[in-house]
């Protein structure tokens, strides 16, 4: 590690270390190299996106006019948003219970709680298919209007996402100094005030990490979604896998690129709008 410090860089200013910056940039480059390829291919005239044949915007025009593709994208995003919210709340509660309390069979409870992480996706997908079919929920959800017809998928996504949130938030809570909580109570704060003003801010990085994880898991899930979806709820991954037989077109790349660009632009705008002193949060 760098022992010679440059002027102005304190021993803990790791953010200013050149070696860390270089390493950081290198890993980011590796992470993004395939993504740039994917973006480049969204401008490719080749239908299969294997060989570069020429530049075009056609794929964007086609994606823009492809109502099915947009519907699938909208379904996926809706499912991911709702599942993330529910999963983050449930997961945090489980994390809090595991962190705060001793109770009988706790080790077993923790083990069971991590089963959705362990279980092979297809096993969970099939078991939910059997459950929803036998409980009549499969046929029942079909009669609902959008977005309520996504209910089975959302239930399934929450079920496999929230243990991930729980485990991430829990690992964050381990570092909590209980004296802060006691100090808060000594100063006259109620249980609820303490929770809201002391514990939640401390949990925040864990909550954000957990929520991002849940969103990522939900957005990209194919197997469980496939087995829990009704006849009218095509999601983006289901569409993509179904395209494999006939060839995944660069339209999909165009749609994915649009998703990335929109997310980045929205985030940058949100950051600009935030007051500078708040922007560090999270």
């Amino acid at each position, binding site marked *: 590690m760098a022992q010679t410090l440059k002027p102005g860089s304190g021993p803990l200013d790791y953010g200013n270390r050149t070696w860390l910056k270089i390493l950081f940039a290198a890993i980011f480059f590796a992470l993004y190299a395939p*993504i740039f390829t994917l973006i480049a291919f969204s401008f490719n005239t080749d239908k299969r996106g294997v060989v570069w044949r020429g530049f075009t915007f056609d794929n964007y025009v086609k994606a823009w006019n492809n109502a099915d593709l947009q519907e699938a994208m909208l379904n996926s995003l809706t499912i991911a948003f709702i599942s993330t919210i529910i999963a983050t709340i449930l997961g945090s509660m489980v994390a809090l219970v595991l962190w705060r309390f001793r109770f009988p069979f706790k080790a077993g409870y923790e083990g069971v709680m991590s089963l959705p992480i362990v279980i092979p996706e297809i096993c969970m997908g099939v078991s*939910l298919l059997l459950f929803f079919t036998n409980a009549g929920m499969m046929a029942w959800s079909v009669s609902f209007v959008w977005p309520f017809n996504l209910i089975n998928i959302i239930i399934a996504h929450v079920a496999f996402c929230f243990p991930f949130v729980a485990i991430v938030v829990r690992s964050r809570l381990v570092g909590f100094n209980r004296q802060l909580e006691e100090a808060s109570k000594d100063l006259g704060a109620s249980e609820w005030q303490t929770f809201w003003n002391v514990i939640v801010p401390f949990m925040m990085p864990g909550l954000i990490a957990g929520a*991002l994880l849940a969103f990522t898991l939900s957005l990209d899930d194919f197997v469980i979604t496939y087995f829990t979806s009704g006849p009218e709820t095509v999601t983006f991954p289901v569409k993509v896998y179904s395209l494999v037989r006939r060839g995944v077109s660069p339209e999909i790349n165009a749609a994915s690129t649009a998703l990335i660009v929109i997310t980045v632009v929205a985030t940058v705008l949100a950051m600009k709008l935030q007051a500078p002193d708040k922007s560090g949060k999270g």
Partner: protein
Amino acid sequence: MDSWKVNPRVFWTLFTPGTFWLVLFFLIPLGWLFHDSFSDKISITETQFTGTLANYIRAFDAVYLTIIWKSVWISAVATALCLLTAYPIAFGICFAPAKWKPLLLLLVILPFWINLLIRTYALIAVFRTQGYLNLVLGWVGLGPYEMLYNDGAVIVGLVYVYMPFMVLPLYATIERLDRSFLEASLDLGGSQVQTFFKVTLPLTMPGIVTGIILVFIPCLGSFLTPAMLGGANAIMIGNVIEDQFKAANDWPFGSALSFLLMYVTFGALALRAFLASRSKGVDV
């Protein structure tokens, strides 16, 4: 840590919703397949519960044990590589200027919002024999190398797939790491290296352990990455399980394999929780 009896109202409020969801939408559905794993197939679509252990015994056939062993070491290597790459990333984000943090965090996660299959295709485009990496290597007179369709490619692919599962828990623990500990260590004459291994690493251990669990276990069950990036003998246990539920139409055996995987991991996790609850302080 309090006993649940200290504040039963808070305990039940926090305990009930997640447990309810897990029981109703995970354990009960899983019951069907658990039941199936002790059943015999009696027709194309039906199984009959006979209490048989044949499905479990079949899993101990040499061919499946070979595949399981292979899955374990590939997952272990991928998890280790994931940790080595994710730690600097998480560390870098946590020590970056505050205003950059949200964007950096998002940028790390963003690639994983792209469909896995599309991402894998992109990975193939980079690494294939006439791909971009070989093109660049060609400029400096190297290659082309055959980089895909071997175990190494599967490992790289798995690292690429499960990176966020490692970065996010690490971020959650490194962020707001109590820096006074690091300062104390440096003030007391510890070198940066010593501080890292003696202070930073132990303090972030909960995140590391979580990350390892979240990467290693899903790696074990992965099937798309080995199928797309692996060579002729890339098969992993996830592929075998998938095959039982699909082409082989043998749900009892597929269930038995899945449950074996679960028993082992469940045992390991419960053991860890049990040991952690006995050793005081370091409770991960």
